[in-house]
């Protein structure tokens, strides 16, 4: 790897490096020598990578310029009560609740319950000191730092304060989902929040993880939440991963989710993106052994000046795997959306079934959507398909609804709801699905 000279964002990088040094003396870092080493390594590696520019194919439609402009300080904890977080709890959902405010774990607001026998959830510092957890935690961190990395992942590794290590033990069907709730608020200065999850689902286990990202009501200014989540699905393990997101008007969210799947395992992503100033999701799965199923279900809805970018990747490296992907969304006002769905079917990945579809409604002249399916197929005995549509509402349907007495706005809202609902319908947990619908509903009302 060569060291880079001409980086457009040299200043931004220097500010992050400086922030890291001052951060060292703050309380709240986990005080683990081993973790500290990883963090130092990460900030060191930051020197070797560039922040992406629009010249990078992967970032062609999303500029991080605005995201990197503020002079960030590391987010601080806020005195919140249980009542304050009420609106972000999912009604009727019995779960292990972990609450983070500005990237900092909130013991008093959390309700982790007593963890069942097959479930481990501890901070990464703890995992690195735990004989049973250490191998998996170390492997995940090494993978993150030694593999193909980028500036945001490195920042995450350097700054995450209360990263979580989660493990479903062999054969454990974890009954209650984990709900990892991330609340953000800007401080006097723009604030910077990082959180890392390392999740290991051991063979034959089953686990549901819900991630929620929301802005706290009183917050106004800029903040940047930088998330990294890694899943390892062991043989025949089943992972259900929900992501619900509604950041603030000046909220930036970058989320990197990486999954590796072993034989016969299932990973399903159910995502609802309601945007922020800029949201960039990278969702990447690598299939390591045959017989896996990978489902990506996504819904997005951008209004005002929002920008939502979903980049997904499924790497069919081995034969006999199935992937299904459906992303649907609405872009209106002056908002913009990006969908880039890459599916790579390598030479040996015979009998692959890979389906991908992206449908967007673009509802105003000033709104835009860039969609790019990227199917690269090097095997010959496969079934793959993809499709992308960008359209407006079906005026025939609008007329039909209005001819039954529904006012124009109501008719359009009903059709837009219906459009998004298809992607949310797949959510297995009823309570989460209803909550997601409620979030969508309130966005229509904004």
């Amino acid at each position, binding site marked *: 790897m060569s060291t880079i000279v001409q980086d457009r964002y040299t200043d931004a990088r220097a500010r992050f490096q400086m922030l890291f040094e001052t951060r060292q003396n703050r309380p709240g870092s986990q005080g683990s020598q081993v973790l500290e080493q990883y963090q130092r390594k990460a900030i060191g590696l930051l020197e070797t990578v560039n922040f992406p520019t629009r010249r990078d194919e992967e970032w062609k439609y999303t500029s991080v310029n605005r995201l990197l402009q503020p002079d960030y300080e590391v987010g601080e904890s806020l005195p919140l009560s249980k009542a304050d977080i009420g609106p972000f709890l999912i009604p009727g959902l019995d779960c292990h609740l972990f609450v983070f405010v500005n990237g900092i774990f909130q013991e008093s607001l959390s309700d982790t319950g007593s963890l069942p026998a097959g479930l481990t959830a501890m901070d990464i510092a703890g995992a690195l000191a735990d004989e049973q957890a250490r191998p998996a935690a170390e492997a995940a961190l090494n993978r993150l730092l030694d593999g193909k990395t980028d500036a945001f992942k490195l920042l995450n590794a350097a700054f995450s304060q209360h990263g979580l290590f989660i493990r479903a033990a062999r054969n454990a069907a974890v009954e209650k989902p984990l709900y990892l709730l991330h609340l953000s608020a800007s401080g006097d200065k723009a604030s910077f929040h990082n959180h890392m999850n390392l999740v290991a689902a051991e063979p034959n286990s089953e686990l549901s993880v819900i991630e929620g990202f929301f802005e706290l009501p009183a917050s106004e200014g800029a903040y940047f939440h930088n998330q990294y989540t890694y899943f390892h699905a062991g043989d025949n393990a089943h992972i259900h991963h929900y992501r619900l997101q509604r950041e603030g008007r000046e909220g930036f969210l970058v989320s990197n989710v990486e999954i590796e799947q072993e034989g016969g395992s299932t990973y399903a992503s159910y995502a609802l993106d309601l945007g922020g100033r800029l949201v960039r999701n990278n969702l990447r799965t690598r299939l390591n052994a045959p017989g896996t199923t990978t489902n990506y279900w996504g819904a997005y809805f951008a209004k005002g000046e929002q920008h939502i970018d979903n980049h997904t990747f499924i790497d069919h490296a081995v034969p006999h795997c199935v992937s299904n992907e459906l992303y649907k969304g609405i872009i209106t006002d002056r908002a913009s959306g990006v969908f880039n769905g890459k599916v790579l079917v390598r030479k040996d990945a015979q009998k692959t079934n890979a389906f991908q579809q992206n449908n967007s409604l673009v509802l105003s002249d000033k709104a835009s959507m860039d969609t790019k399916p990227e199917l690269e197929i090097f095997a010959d005995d496969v079934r793959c398909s993809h499709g992308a549509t960008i359209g407006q509402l079906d005026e025939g349907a609008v007329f039909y609804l209005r*001819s039954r007495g529904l006012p124009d706005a109501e008719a359009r809202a009903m059709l837009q709801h219906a459009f998004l609902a298809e992607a949310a319908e797949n959510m297995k947990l009823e309570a989460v699905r209803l909550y997601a619908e409620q979030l969508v509903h309130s966005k229509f009302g904004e």
Partner: protein
Amino acid sequence: MLKIKNLKVAIEEKEILRGINLEVKPGEVHAIMGPNGSGKSTLANVLAGREEYEVTEGSILYQGQDLLEMEVDERAQAGIFLAFQYPVEIPGVSTANFLKSTVNAVRKAQGREELNAAQMLRLLREKIRMVGMDEKLLQRSLNEGFSGGEKKRSEMLQMALLEPKLAILDETDSGLDIDALRIVSEAVNQLRSPDRAFIIVTHYQRLLNYIVPDFVHVLYNGRIVKSGDKSLALQLEEQGYDWIKEEADSVAAV
């Protein structure tokens, strides 16, 4: 109730309705017949407010108001209902939710109290029975994958729920089996009342055995070229349209 005067309508520069005159009074049932492509659906859609059609001349008064000035939803709220020849399929909108929303939207617009969940359920059940529809369809997306007959019944259900003042049925009988035809006709007959009028577009005299019309009109080439009572429908059934076309064409040629 409805006064159409010299109505001319074009779509994409092509004149389709070429001077329609029709008056419908409360309580009356008017049947409109006529060959394919003569403009029957066009007339129905213009009444419902479809915007692709351009009214180039003439006027429509509905309950003393200028109908052409009213929005599509205002018309529905004022009691106009069109049962479509080809109802659109709307994926993702549940039939039950749709029906509930329309009933309350119309009630609200009319200044009546909206129904609560229990009242709504009772109303839905009653009307479903009336049109002989399978209750399971309520859980499905609106019209999506409905059979031809199911779509027509769903239109009749909507009519029964919205209790319009002027109901226009565009070939609701097409594609119905004999039992369905009878049930739908009975539903219409139940709704017949001194203050409600119907315009029934059909190709078949058979329907008019069940729903006996006060007037029968023949629409040809964008004009009503003949009007009569129910016997006219019988005559058309026996003789077809040729004699009418000839008559009309010779008049037009003069």
